[in-house]
């Protein structure tokens, strides 16, 4: 395979096709990227890993190049970078009160019991008992980000492996795994999570368990579908003929060629997970009251909607919206970029 890849590159270079970005399928790349890829390979001193990875690296560069041309995905990436920064360094932006036991609990100021407008005392206003909305928004980003990353990573990992087994082996294994998946997918996500969360009790940890027990199924179905078709390719036969074991074939040949839909789905699910967490917290099932979680903050602001304390609701909602939108924009862009039909 590596030899073939090299040859294609060499041919391209010789014939000087410059507009290859517009036409090809897997072996494309703008000529600039092509050169970059070759140079990169040279610099690595021709190590075997770099050589083997090069076509894939080139694909990545081409994807990046495509993404850089889409305004929506750039907007998504910028938003994600900002949110990731806030989530990584919340103490820089909203330092917790020294000696506070849990930084995720919004500090209160009992001398200001009535919610105050955004202004000098509170940047984004305050809630009950001087709960700082700005503090909640900042630390809420950390709660949401870590929560979403954990759920999506574990869910996608477990789901993808199950789907891979189902799609690759077929037969009884496929039947068992997929019937199990059907069961979990036949109950709307929020409702099943709600049922489990109600049983497990309140708190982000319980909600995480509830979400995880549901969130793998979508990925299983996704990757099983692609794995089914990928395993029919002749390069899988070739790998088997050259003596590769089942596990190696699955992880070296099937997985890398069937994981793009999972990447897109996982990106968008980052947002959906946060929406679900916020929804559960709003219902009183997720994070406990007083936490810097956006859904809980809206829940606590809701009794005041007739009092005109709009900041208690508007800002946490905007935070959720921008978080979810960021990942949806990026996922939407990724889908176009990774879609073989769109790689023209």
């Amino acid at each position, binding site marked *: 395979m590596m030899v073939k890849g090299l040859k294609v590159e060499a041919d391209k270079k010789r014939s000087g096709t410059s507009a290859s970005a517009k036409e090809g399928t897997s072996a494309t790349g703008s000529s600039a990227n092509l050169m970059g890829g070759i140079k990169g390979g040279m610099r690595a001193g021709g190590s075997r890993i770099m050589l083997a990875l090069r076509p894939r690296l080139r694909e990545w560069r081409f994807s990046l190049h495509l993404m850089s041309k889409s305004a929506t995905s750039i907007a998504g990436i910028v938003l994600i970078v900002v949110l990731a920064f806030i989530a990584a360094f919340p103490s820089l932006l909203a330092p917790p009160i020294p000696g506070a036991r849990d930084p995720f609990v919004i500090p209160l100021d009992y001398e200001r019991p009535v919610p105050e407008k955004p202004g000098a005392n509170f940047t984004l206003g305050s809630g009950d008992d001087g709960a700082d909305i700005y503090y909640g928004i900042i630390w809420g980003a950390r709660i949401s980000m870590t929560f979403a990353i954990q759920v999506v990573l574990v869910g996608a990992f477990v789901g993808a492996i199950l789907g891979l087994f189902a799609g690759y082996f077929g037969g009884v294994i496929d039947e068992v795994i997929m*019937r199990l998946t*059907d069961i979990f997918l*036949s*109950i709307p996500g929020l409702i099943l999570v709600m049922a489990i969360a109600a049983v497990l009790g309140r708190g982000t940890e319980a909600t995480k368990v509830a979400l995880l027990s549901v969130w793998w199924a979508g990925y299983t179905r996704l990757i099983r579908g692609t794995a089914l078709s990928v395993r029919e390719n002749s390069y899988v036969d070739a790998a088997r003929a050259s003596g590769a074991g089942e596990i190696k074939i699955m992880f070296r040949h099937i997985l890398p060629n069937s994981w793009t839909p999972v990447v897109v789905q996982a990106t968008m699910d980052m947002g959906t997970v946060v929406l679900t967490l916020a*929804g559960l917290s709003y219902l009183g099932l997720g994070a406990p009251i007083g936490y810097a979680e956006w859904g809980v903050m809206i829940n606590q602001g809701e009794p005041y*909607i007739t009092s005109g304390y709009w900041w208690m609701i508007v800002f946490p909602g905007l935070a959720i919206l921008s978080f979810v939108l960021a990942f949806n924009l990026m996922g939407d862009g990724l889908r176009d970029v990774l879609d073989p039909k769109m790689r023209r």
Partner: protein
Amino acid sequence: MIPVLIGVSLLTFFIIRLAGDPVFSYLQDPSKATEQILDQIREKYHLNEPTYVQYFYWLNSVLHGDLGYTKAAQNIPVTEAIALKFPATFELALTSTILAVSIGVSVGTRAAVKANSATDQSARVVSLVAVSIPVFWLGILLIIIFYNMLGWTPIPHNQYSTEFDPRADLNVHTNFLLIDTLLSGNFDFFFDHVMHLVLPTITLAFATTAIIVRMMRSSMLEVLGSEYVRTARAKGLPEKVVIRKHARRNALIPTTTVIGLSFGGLLGGAVLTETVFSWNGLGQWAADAAEAIDTAGIMGFTLLTAVIYVLANLTVDLVYSFLDPRVRLG
């Protein structure tokens, strides 16, 4: 379909057992929870037998409509609660689906016809925003704007104002208020109910509309690239006719699937939307049940949504094979 339902029942049963002693699900009056009564219930529902035996007794009673009593709705039997609350949920699901379809199909068509134009791009961004909005936040914002600030809509509480009483004011009782009020000739009540319906309908329609727009756009694009559309254009048909009669009709087929499934999902109760608007339907009941750790209620609701969802899937498959003659059910 049957294996899935059996699986769902197993899953539900398992969650109920996790929740603690199932005996309390069958207790109609919690204030009379003496050891003796609890023992009687255990005896009646075979709760003192091994767990796997219990499952079959439990399944049997579920199939006979006995799911226990729901604390979240004045301790009435779960099946009665479902019958009582389903009409309100159904009306909301229906109105919001109608709204979503009427906007979604035309916007999606336009976006595909003018692919990559400004219209298309803004439709894309707007639908991304629409699926990213937390639905409960959207509901609250709508309440702030249309009830607090503008005063156009009535208090978001229940499906009608307090001055009306379905039992006293109506002489038809299907619990579908739109129908009951009209058949009783009580147009004030009808109008009041419609005004209560407006905001939850819009809230619920948001995400569905976005999904329909995207589906309609992509299937329309596919159809527009097909041979028969080229033929239609080649024989000189006006573009309007090509789009309306040749392209859109066929593009609607895959969209129907999405519409059917989302309607099925909404029928199971829009938990968040109903909670925001205190809409006395299945969704709010489920939310109350979850908060009160009313196992009987929440499990009855979960089973119900699963059944509705599976049935919606089946219906969509059947409708699909009817709409698209190329698909044969094997």
